[in-house]
């Protein structure tokens, strides 16, 4: 029986091996097919990149093949285990394959049945089977009956493997890989260094924020700029170019606002004031009055305020001798006179009027000057506006100079007579009256002058407190200087940046859209020019940020009015238009054809285009109107 059992065991082993090979080979074919499909899909659409399939990785390919083999072996083994046959079943199969007439299976079955094996016929059957199994050729016949070989379609798996390797090797990777790009963008977003534009915007923000007055005025714009930088760093993924473009936009907007601040009447008045104070002559004696005059001459109102405090202490104290007090009072009176003189100096305005081709004498009469500017035919609107602003700023500066002169006079009086306090109140009242008169004059000029008159009123109410006036002057000065500085910083950065001209134009045009007025360029030009003068010509004259000049060309009308994009000859049609419905239908049909054929409609609008003209055509057809081509298209295409 051992011989029979060994034969059956051999048959069973070979049977399992064969089944394992077939099952594994089948699974291998499927997995190789899947690998091939993944490679092709990865190269063509790239969607599998999202699940981590790399584009060209030999390791991935080798790993996939190894995984396929392992998976096939495992599934084959599971399949064999699931379909594992008993020895009796295998013996029956062996009998069938070698044609033994169920000798071996019968013997195997009878050998385990004691009741049957006691039968002579059963013993005879077993003996027959053993004699049959003793045939030396039976082992070879068993091997032949249970071949271990690949299936008929063994070539499928190698073919798929070769195809997969070939696909991996030869199929090019398409550029458009949404998932890959997404990953790259994500990596870029996390690792991307900040662009120069973003850095400049950050620096500009820091600079602006250093001046609280300016930051308060530009609060909304600063917030927008901060949000832009924050989104570039932490928000939705953007390309470096997009981030740079956004930063440029914000910078351009800030520039616009800085230019407006620099061009404001407060800033201009502050500049005029400083220009005028620069002409002060310093007292010869070295005392507090000289310090004050020097600070005013340099436009350093902070230092001037300290000097005033020193003066007050000196005047109120008893350290100074009478002689010194007189010297000090004399110096203050001298400075006050100079300030009063400067407050009436029309030279600058006269020079401006002269440059504009107007009578310089008008600088002495503000009301006449306003009328003359308004009625001038030689000046364009921009020039008129610039002159009016200049006149206003000169006037404001002169007003401040006058106030300073009065305060100086008061301080001089205090120095002379330390106990005389009543004059202060009188002077203050006088100052208040004077300011009221000025306010009356300014009333016609509109609300712009309200703030300035308010300043004078305020100083008058305080009894001519020089300190407050200097504080305000210092505040205006700082804001003006900061605006100038920031504007200069941002413009200088833009000029030195590596952006192409087209990009810069694009950014500028985007910022221009958000700007309020259409003549921003002209304003900017003017203000820049003034700032250049104010800083003593240290800063280079610059027309616009990128050398772009916005100008409006005068068009010439020929043979008719321009009422649309087309030039219509003759008189412009007015009133109802009566056109034959057939002709309208023809025009629409022609337009539809042109839109579809000659001038392709954008892909995303084609459906709309077709639906719209299709509906129109239906409506015409419902009314029984045939399309009649317009006369101009009669001989057309």
């Amino acid at each position: 029986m051992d011989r029979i059992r060994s034969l059956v065991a051999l048959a069973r082993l070979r049977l399992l091996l064969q089944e394992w090979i077939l099952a594994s080979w089948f699974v291998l074919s499927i997995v190789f097919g899947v690998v091939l499909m993944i490679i092709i899909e990865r190269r063509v659409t790239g969607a599998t990149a999202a699940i981590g399939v790399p584009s060209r990785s030999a390791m991935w390919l080798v790993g996939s093949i190894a995984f396929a083999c392992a998976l096939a072996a495992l599934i084959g083994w599971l399949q064999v285990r699931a379909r594992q046959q008993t020895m009796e079943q295998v013996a029956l199969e062996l009998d069938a394959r070698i044609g033994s007439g169920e000798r071996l299976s019968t013997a195997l079955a009878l050998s385990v049945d004691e009741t049957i094996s006691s039968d002579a016929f059963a013993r005879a059957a077993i003996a027959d089977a053993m004699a049959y199994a003793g045939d030396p050729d039976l082992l070879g016949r068993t091997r032949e009956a249970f071949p271990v070989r690949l299936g008929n379609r063994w070539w499928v798996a190698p073919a798929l493997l070769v195809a997969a390797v070939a696909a991996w090797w030869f199929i090019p990777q398409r550029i458009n890989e949404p998932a890959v790009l997404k990953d790259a963008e994500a990596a870029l977003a996390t690792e991307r260094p900040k662009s120069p534009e973003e850095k400049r915007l950050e620096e500009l923000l820091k600079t602006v924020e250093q001046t609280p007055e300016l930051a308060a005025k530009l609060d909304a714009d600063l917030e927008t700029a901060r949000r832009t930088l924050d989104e570039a760093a932490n928000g939705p993924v953007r390309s470096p170019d997009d981030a740079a473009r956004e930063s440029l936009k914000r910078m351009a907007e800030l520039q616009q606002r800085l230019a407006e601040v620099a061009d404001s009447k407060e800033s201009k008045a502050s500049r005029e004031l400083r220009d005028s104070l620069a002409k002060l002559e310093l007292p010869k004696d070295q005392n507090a009055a000289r310090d004050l005059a020097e600070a005013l001459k340099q436009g350093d109102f902070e230092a001037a305020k300290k000097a005033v405090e020193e003066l007050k202490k000196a005047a109120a104290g008893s350290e100074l001798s009478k002689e010194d007090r007189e010297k000090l009072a004399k110096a203050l009176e001298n400075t006050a006179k100079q300030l009063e003189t400067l407050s009436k100096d029309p030279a600058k305005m006269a020079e401006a009027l002269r440059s504009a081709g107007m009578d310089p004498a008008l600088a002495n009469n503000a009301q006449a000057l306003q009328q003359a500017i308004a009625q001038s035919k030689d000046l364009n609107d921009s020039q008129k506006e610039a002159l009016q602003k200049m006149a206003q700023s000169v006037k404001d500066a002169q007003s401040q100079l006058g106030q300073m002169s009065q305060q100086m006079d008061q301080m001089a009086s205090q120095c002379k007579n330390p106990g005389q306090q009543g004059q202060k109140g009188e002077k203050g009242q006088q100052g208040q009256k004077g300011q009221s008169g000025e306010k009356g004059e300014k009333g016609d000029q509109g609300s712009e002058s309200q703030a300035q008159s308010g300043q004078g009123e305020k100083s008058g109410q305080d009894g001519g407190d020089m300190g407050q006036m200097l504080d305000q002057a210092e505040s205006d000065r700082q804001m003006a200087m900061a605006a100038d500085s920031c504007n200069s910083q941002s413009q200088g950065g833009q000029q030195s940046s590596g952006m192409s001209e087209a990009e810069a134009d694009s950014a500028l045009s985007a910022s221009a859209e958000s700007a309020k007025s259409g003549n921003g360029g002209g304003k900017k030009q003017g203000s820049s020019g003034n700032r250049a003068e104010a800083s003593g010509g240290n800063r280079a004259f610059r027309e616009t940020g990128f050398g772009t000049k916005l100008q409006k060309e005068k068009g010439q009308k020929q043979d008719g009015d321009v009422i649309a994009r087309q030039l219509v000859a003759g008189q412009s049609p007015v009133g109802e238009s009566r056109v034959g419905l057939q002709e309208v239908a023809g025009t629409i049909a022609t337009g539809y054809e042109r839109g579809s054929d000659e001038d392709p409609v954008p892909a995303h609008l084609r459906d709309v285009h077709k639906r719209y003209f299709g509906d129109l055509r239906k409506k015409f057809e419902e009314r029984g109107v045939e399309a009649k081509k317009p006369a101009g298209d009669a001989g057309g295409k």
Partner: protein
Amino acid sequence: MTVIAPQLPGDIARLPAFDAGIENDDIARERCASFRSVALRLREAIGKRVVGQQTVVDQTLWALFAGGHVLLEGVPGLGKTLLVRTLGDALHLDFSRIQFTPDLMPADIVGTQILMDDDAGHRVMQFRPGPIFTQILLADEVNRASPKSQSALLEAMQERSVTVGGETHRLRAPFLVLATQNPIEQEGTYPLPEAQLDRFLLKIAVPSVERADLHEILRRTTTSTETPVTPILDGERIVQAQRLARRIVMALPVQDYVIRLVLATHPGGEYADPQAAREISVGASPRAAQAIVTTAKVRALLDGRFHVSIADVHAVAASALRHRIVPSFEAEADGLDSDRIVSGIIARLQRQIPEDAS
């Protein structure tokens, strides 16, 4: 009706008892070998008269040694009756022939009681046996008799006894009914009911003869020469052979195969063949499995083996099952007969043992 008296055998008496001493391995082998040689001689003897129907002869011998009855079906002139007559000649058995006709009465088959005067001058009812009281009965054209007459065979075939007038008369063993029927002449016939068909161990389809065989038939039957057949086996040896055949072993896998084969013919059953379920309206009975096993054992014995193989099952399956399954309307519409249905089931039946077989 003719009763043919068997001739006395010449060397039958010298034959050993086939089932004697078979508990010994060597004697069992010797008895089997002896039986095989006798069966071979019997086969050759029949072959002297019946030409070209070797399969039919073999199947008839299987039924003889399996102890079952045979229904021979074939068109007229194929030698059915000759086969049975030759078998009767080759066996030292009583032989009777009944030609079934529509007016045949049961009493004509089993016999009747008649009023007779005894030795004392009294009138008594005495049973006069019919032709069924024989050992080999040729029921020629059995489907021509009325169902009533056909049913007269039922008890005799199954119980091997006849009850007439409340008195049961045993039939001598062996008792073998060899019935014939013509499949094409259906007019004026009474198809055998299923219950009666089931009594036949095998239904043997008698095929047409080949060209060469026909030459031989003509040579033998159209000349004045006659081929004598001498008796080879007597009834006792046949019964011994039947007992010997039943000792052939059948392993569990083969037996399970037989069971699954029979169950596959049961539409709607757990082991029903899906396709056969559409082709069969009534499946084979357990008696079919018995028929297959006993016949397969005879075949194995005749083949010199002590065990039954699946090949034996395949060889006997058609003749054991063809009259026990009822083809469905769809099968008949498709022109499928029982033989094709059975062969289809065999082709689809797994050789391997299902998990739940043990």
